[in-house]
């Protein structure tokens, strides 16, 4: 079984549109949307949800007000500025934990002299197994202000691989998250092949360099393609050169094409339309040799 992860460094380079097209071009793939923070692939692939699972990760501190003695030990121990103080009329202080800032370390729980802090597991969202017109899809929705999308990414990838093995499907296509932090690291570790979709802009160039040093760090074969290349042909040439120097293989260019947006508005992948850039995307798919 092969696993292709599509990432971009910078957001908005067309990563998801390319992924959706590959889902159409591939033979019996399993599709995984690991951009759990801003998952958009379902808007094109229109999955029918078959199974839903709650996603829990980490813990959070919660003060039981009836047991709190107002000593403020939690405030002095917390390194994450997560303890709020309400000054009450009687001159007393009321303490509470800001769930959004709490990192779930448990220091306040341990050192509360009145044992007035609970430490329940945190619900962080849900993940789903669905059916699309091109194959099974695993996707997720991270709760608002939830942390730890790295673990959710790992869960989505693992399930997609499990389905591929169970149904004897040879390719998992992963839509990865933007950036180079925990969700991205979780989406590429151990992958067989990474494709970076970038754009010919100063930001695209800068972010590509960072993403390529990340894939090099984890020793993953990396391909690069440039979307909207004709917006700045000189920059395109420069980026391609840099990508090669960094050890990546350049697999193609996609022209600036407004039809990409119109396809999105019809909830179709680009290669299902007669957009001019379809040839470019097909050529890249061929070059990947999957």
């Amino acid at each position: 079984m092969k696993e292709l992860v599509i990432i971009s460094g910078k957001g908005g380079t067309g990563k998801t549109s390319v992924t959706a097209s590959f889902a159409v071009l591939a033979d019996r793939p399993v599709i995984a949307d690991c951009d759990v923070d801003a998952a958009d692939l379902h808007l094109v692939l229109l999955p029918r949800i078959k199974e839903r699972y709650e996603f829990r990760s980490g813990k959070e501190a919660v003060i039981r007000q009836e047991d709190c003695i107002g000593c403020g030990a939690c405030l002095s121990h917390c390194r994450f500025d997560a303890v709020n103080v309400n000054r009450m009329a009687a001159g007393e202080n009321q303490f509470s934990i800001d769930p959004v800032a709490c990192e779930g370390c448990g220091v306040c729980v341990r050192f509360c002299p009145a044992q007035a802090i609970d430490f329940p597991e945190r619900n962080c969202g849900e993940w789903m197994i669905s059916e699309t017109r091109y194959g099974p899809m695993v996707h997720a929705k991270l709760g608002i202000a939830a942390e730890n999308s790295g673990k959710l990414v790992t869960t989505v990838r693992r399930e997609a691989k499990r389905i591929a093995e169970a149904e004897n499907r040879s390719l998992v296509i992963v839509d990865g998250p933007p950036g180079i932090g925990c969700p991205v690291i979780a989406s590429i570790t151990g992958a067989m092949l990474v494709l970076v979709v970038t754009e010919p802009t100063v930001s695209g160039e800068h972010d590509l360099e960072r993403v390529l040093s990340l894939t090099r760090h984890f020793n993953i074969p990396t391909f690069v393609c440039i979307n909207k290349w004709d917006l700045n042909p000189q920059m395109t040439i420069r980026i391609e050169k840099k990508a090669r120097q960094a050890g990546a293989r350049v697999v193609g260019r996609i022209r600036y094409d407004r039809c990409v947006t119109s396809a999105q508005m019809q909830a179709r992948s680009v290669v299902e339309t007669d957009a001019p850039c379809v040839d470019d995307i097909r050529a890249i798919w061929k070059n990947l040799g999957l």
Partner: protein
Amino acid sequence: MKIAFTTSGNDLNAPLDVRFGRAPNFIVYDLDTETFEVIDNQPSLHAAQGAGIQSAETVARSGAKALVTGHCGPRAFRVLLAAGIKVYNTEAYTVGEALALYRAGKLTEAKTADVEGHWF
């Protein structure tokens, strides 16, 4: 001597789980008494991060001196090494098959982690 196996089941016919950190159970087999116990790895399954590290601790506490599994990441490997537990990677389908391979001396000891850590 005790050997730990990763599995989703609870007897020797159960499939060997290729994952170490997020394996649902460990079967710890005692070669001296020819008996085994099943250890629940649920806490690691729900860990926010460091499932491999936590699983390695669980194995260390079980008293096992060897671990037979599919793959093992770098952090877990470091913990197992520190605890003096030898790691064997295998593609055997069931726990029983893996045990037979171990007894026959057909498993080679891993000198390093064989996969990248999954981080979370």
